């Protein structure tokens, strides 16, 4: 599991949520139901972390320049994303055009198996 910085995560949050939204909601629901016990929601934690890792790996592989630009912008603006809407939108567009459909097919395969 590679650690990703807060800037990287917050910049690519749209890309992550476009794929992992249901996973996140399931994780949050489990957390609400079972309290703060990490053992109870381990399945959901693993799925959330894995989904995020996969998408971040995909982004770093295909949209590296856009990601670097957006991360630089966010880090220069005191970790505020409102001033970097242009960069984040470019990153999301790059992710959508290059990797989204591939990932969706992959996830459909995973659900089938």
């Amino acid at each position, binding site marked *: 599991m590679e650690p990703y910085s807060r800037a990287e*995560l*917050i910049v690519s949050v749209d890309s992550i*949520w476009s794929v992992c939204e249901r996973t996140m909601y399931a994780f949050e629901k489990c957390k609400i139901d079972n309290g703060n016990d990490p053992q109870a*929601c381990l399945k959901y934690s693993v799925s959330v972390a894995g989904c995020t890792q996969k998408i971040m790996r995909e982004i770093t592989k295909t949209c590296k320049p856009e990601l670097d630009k957006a991360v630089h912008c966010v880090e220069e603006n005191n970790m505020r994303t409102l001033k970097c809407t242009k960069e984040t939108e470019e990153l999301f567009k790059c992710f959508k055009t290059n990797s989204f459909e591939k990932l969706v097919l992959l996830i459909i395969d995973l659900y089938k198996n």
Partner: protein
Amino acid sequence: MTIDYRQRWVQDLPPPGGYEPLPFGRQTPKMVSGYKIFAGVGLVISIGTYLFINQRLQDLRNEEEERRRLTKILPIIQAENDIMFLGSAHENVYHTRWMPPSIDRCGAFKIIPQSWVAEKKQHHGGHH
């Protein structure tokens, strides 16, 4: 340049009709009404207050948006932290519980004959 020394002397005299009267009286600027000044200051203050409150509201809205975006990465961080926590050696491997500290009673029973003590030690050691 040549100077004609043969010219007649001419005295400087005021222009015909005399000079204009000198403005030696007290000169005051044109007065603005106090009410107008009051109204202008009130206008400036109200405009400034309006701009300030507008900016403040915009900042608060921006903060809220930033916090909303931050909440979107919280489940990711929570999940990774949970996995790291479960993978770490957080469990107590000794399975012990707290006990009161034992009192050092060396020399408390000096009146007991040392032979007894030795006997007890031997007896105790014999079992093990």
